[in-house]
Structure formats: C-alpha cells, structure tokens
C-alpha cells in the first residue's frame, strides 16, 4: 500500500495517478462513516495531529478537525494570533517545539508559498498542506476531483472550465496539476493579469478570452472566489465590472454541456463570481464538495499516517 504517496502531502504537482486514485478510492469508502449513528472509527486512535492555521480558515480547518476526530485522532490547534510567532519565534522553532511534544502529523495552512516544503526539510513527521500562499491547496483539489468523479465517472477527456483569478488561486493550481495528470482538459478564463504566463505549456490547458468561449460544451464549471483580500486596485477595478465580464449567470450556464455541474471552492461572493440562482440551482454541487471534503481529508490523514519515511 501507499505506493505513489510521498511522506508529506505538499501539493498535487508531480503526484502520480496511482497516488491520486488511492486517495479518491479510500475517500469513497470513508463517505459511509458520516451516515452511521456513531460517526467514528478507531483507525487513528492515540495519534496526535496538530492543526496549525497561520491564515484564517473556517471550513478547511473544521473539515480537517472533523476528519481527524472521525478517525479517533486527537487534535491540537494553533493559529497566528495565539502563537508565539507574534513574539518573534521562527516557524521552524515553533513547529520543532510542538514536534518535541510528540505530535504524529502536522496539518498546516500558511500565507507563504512553499512554507510546507521548507518545513519538510526540518521536520520528520508527515506535513499536510492545507493551503500555502498562492501555491497549492491539494486537499481542496482532491475533494473537487472526488465530486467530479461522483458526477461524471472519471477524468479521461473530461472538460473542466476554471474561471477567475488563476494566478492567485492555490485551489486552481492544485486542480490544474491534479486534473491534467488524470487526463482532463482544462479551459481557463479570467482577467488577463490574473492568468499565469505560459500556463498552456503544462499541456491539456487552454486559455480562452471570454467566459462564453471557455464554458462552451464543458462538463464542469469551476468558479473561483475573487480574493478581495489579496487584490490591489491595479488588478481589480470593481466587482460589478468583474461580474459583468466573468460572472456566471443562468444564460451563460446554458452554453455548457446540458449535464454540466457547477462548482465553487467557497466562500462565495454572491453576485460577483456567481449569481445566487446559479449557486443554489439544480446543477450546483457546491455543498457536495463540502461533504466530500471531510471524506477526502479522512483518506489523506489515514493514508499519510501510513507512509513510512
């Protein structure tokens, strides 16, 4: 077991198909646990998992905590405001001190791209990336992929449109890496300054000038959140203009395949990237994504705990 998985889950870039499939298959079998009267299995009993969230998070942190608890692990959490980082302690020192208290795994979100890779050079215990800066958010992409597989059966030849601020979106990056390695075709659309240069060189990625072109005939529409907290005025004039040019409304949805599903990593800026009637409409699988998130994170915690160095 666990061929195809590395010691740490830093991102989906370079992860093998086998690794991704193993996580999705395990997650599929974990879904049922949420429907039991006792929503808990003893698989990780006695394991200590640190939740280190150095950036605000509601659903990812909650989802990881729920996943850990459903596997009977004990969780401990630190966040920026409460940690000694504000006293000037370095990240390595903070985490090494916590490691000295014998944690078995570290789930971390950090504002700096590459923080996890950096830390992985100094820490023995498995590190799970719960989002690093603009870089990757692998468990979000895995839950997106599980939701797509549930609805569409597989990835080979699947057409997925990703619309929005690609450059600043770690969700988009992880999805592009994961989906292209599984054989999907990615259609990209967004404001030009928010599209990374040379994106098409990844292969199976096409950049389209308008949202209409990008979503025509696709099986999946993934709308990204406009991250107003990461924006400067240069990149983003007004929400209304963005909504007019790149927002998803009912008329635009009609251009996609008739069975297309609509996804969003949340939290939604209603009326900006997506009209409320689309977000709440019959094709929206946004809440399924959230449900799948717990199962995917259970699979990640379970499998990564079993990877030997």
């Amino acid at each position, binding site marked *: 077991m666990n061929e195809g998985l590395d010691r740490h889950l830093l991102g989906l870039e370079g992860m093998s198909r086998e690794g991704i499939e193993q996580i999705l298959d395990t997650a599929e079998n974990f879904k*049922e646990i949420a429907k039991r009267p006792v929503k808990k299995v*003893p698989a990780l009993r006695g394991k200590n998992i640190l939740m280190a969230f150095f950036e605000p998070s509601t659903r990812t942190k909650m989802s990881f905590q729920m996943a850990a608890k459903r596997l009977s692990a004990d969780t401990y959490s630190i966040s920026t405001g409460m940690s000694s980082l504000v006293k000037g302690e370095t990240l390595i020192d903070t985490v090494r001190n916590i490691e000295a208290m014998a944690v078995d795994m570290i789930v971390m979100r950090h504002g700096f791209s590459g923080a996890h890779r950096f830390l992985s050079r100094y820490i023995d215990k498995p590190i799970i990336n719960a989002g690093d800066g603009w870089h990757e958010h692998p468990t979000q992409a895995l839950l997106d992929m599980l939701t797509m597989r549930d609805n569409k059966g597989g990835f080979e030849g699947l057409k997925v449109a990703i619309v929005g601020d690609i450059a600043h979106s770690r969700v988009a990056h992880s999805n592009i890496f994961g989906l292209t390695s599984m054989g999907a075709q990615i259609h990209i659309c967004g404001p030009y300054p928010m599209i990374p240069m040379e994106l098409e060189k990844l292969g199976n990625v096409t950049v389209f000038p308008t949202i209409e072109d990008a979503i025509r005939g696709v099986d999946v529409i993934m709308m990204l959140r406009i991250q107003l907290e990461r924006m400067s005025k240069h990149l983003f004039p007004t929400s209304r203009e963005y909504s007019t040019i790149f927002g998803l409304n009912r008329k635009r949805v009609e251009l996609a395949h008739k069975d297309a599903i609509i996804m969003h990593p949340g939290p939604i800026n209603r009326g900006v990237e997506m009209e409320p009637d689309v977000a709440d409409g019959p094709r929206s699988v946004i809440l399924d994504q959230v449900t799948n998130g717990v199962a995917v994170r259970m699979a990640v915690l*379970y499998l990564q705990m079993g990877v030997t160095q």
Partner: protein
Amino acid sequence: MTGYFEKLMVMGEKEIRRALVRLSSEILERNGGIDNLMVVGIQTGGAHLANRMMKIIEKSEEKAPESGLLDITLYRDDAPMLKAPQVGRTDLDSDLNGKKVVLIDDVIYTGRTIRAAMDALIDFGRPKSIQLAVLIDRGLREFPIHPDYVGRTVPTAPDERVEVLLREEGNKKDRVIIYGTDENAPAKKEEP
C-alpha cells in the same frame, strides 16, 4: 505468496457447496427462519460466501433475509503495523437494533478479525445477538471467540496459510488450500 508451497487441498467445489448449504440450514434452524435475521459478510472473502448463502436461504424460505457488508480494516488492532491497509466498502443500511446478526467469514484464525467486526457492528446499533459462521476453522485462537457454525475444522500450524479461493475473485474453481513454507514437510492428509 513467495516462499509458500501448496500442501493440501482441503475442500473442492462440491465440498464448499455442501458446507454452505449445511451452514445455511443450521442458521435457519437455530434462528427459526429469517424473521429478525440479518446476514453480514466480512469483506472480502466472507462477503462472497454471505452472498452465496443468501441465495441458498432465499431458495429455501422464498424470501431473502436482510443483509449487509462489513469492512473491518479501520477496526483492526494491527492496522498501525500494516501501514494504512486498503479500506473496503461497508454497507449496513438497515437498522440492526434488536436484530439477530449472523457474521460470515471465510476463515477464523486468531479471532482478531471477529473482535474487530463486533466492535464495528456495535457502532451501528445494538443487535439482539451476534452469531458467527465460518467456512474454515483453522484453530490457533488468540482471543476467547468461538464460531457458532463451522464448515470444516482444519488443524494448522502458525507458519501455514489457509486460502479460500473463490470464483468471485477470478479463480477458475472454488478451492480451499493450505500452503506451507517447507516444501519437504509431509502434508497432513485428511479424509474429506
């Protein structure tokens, strides 16, 4: 299975079929039919046998009892040593409160699987009773667990392996085989 040699075929197609028919009858007899009965196969070998027994029971009673599927991976006491073994599907939709649950497994050995299965079942509710049916009892128990229905008792040594090979898993024929590590050791020949 490198390093193992086929020692003895304990059961063939016919023997397995007859044993399953007898086990099914015993279950029906002991429980007075299928009322309140629930047959639960343990993944993966037990699940196939449970399917076959369900068909036998359905034929005899003209109605199938409730059934379920149980994967015990997450309840194993040796899971940390095995490095995240693959998790299978569990499907226990029906309410098992007050039911007479019959667990089906292919081989009982140390009893640890059954301990795990009982822990798992109890997370789904409070069955009235739990009974255990196995095709092979190979002895060497480490826990105080005893099957209620046994297809065949086969004394084995700890370095031997007992494999129940079924058509459902892509085998040409149903067979139960004992494998040993020593090629030259004489097989314990048993009359069927």
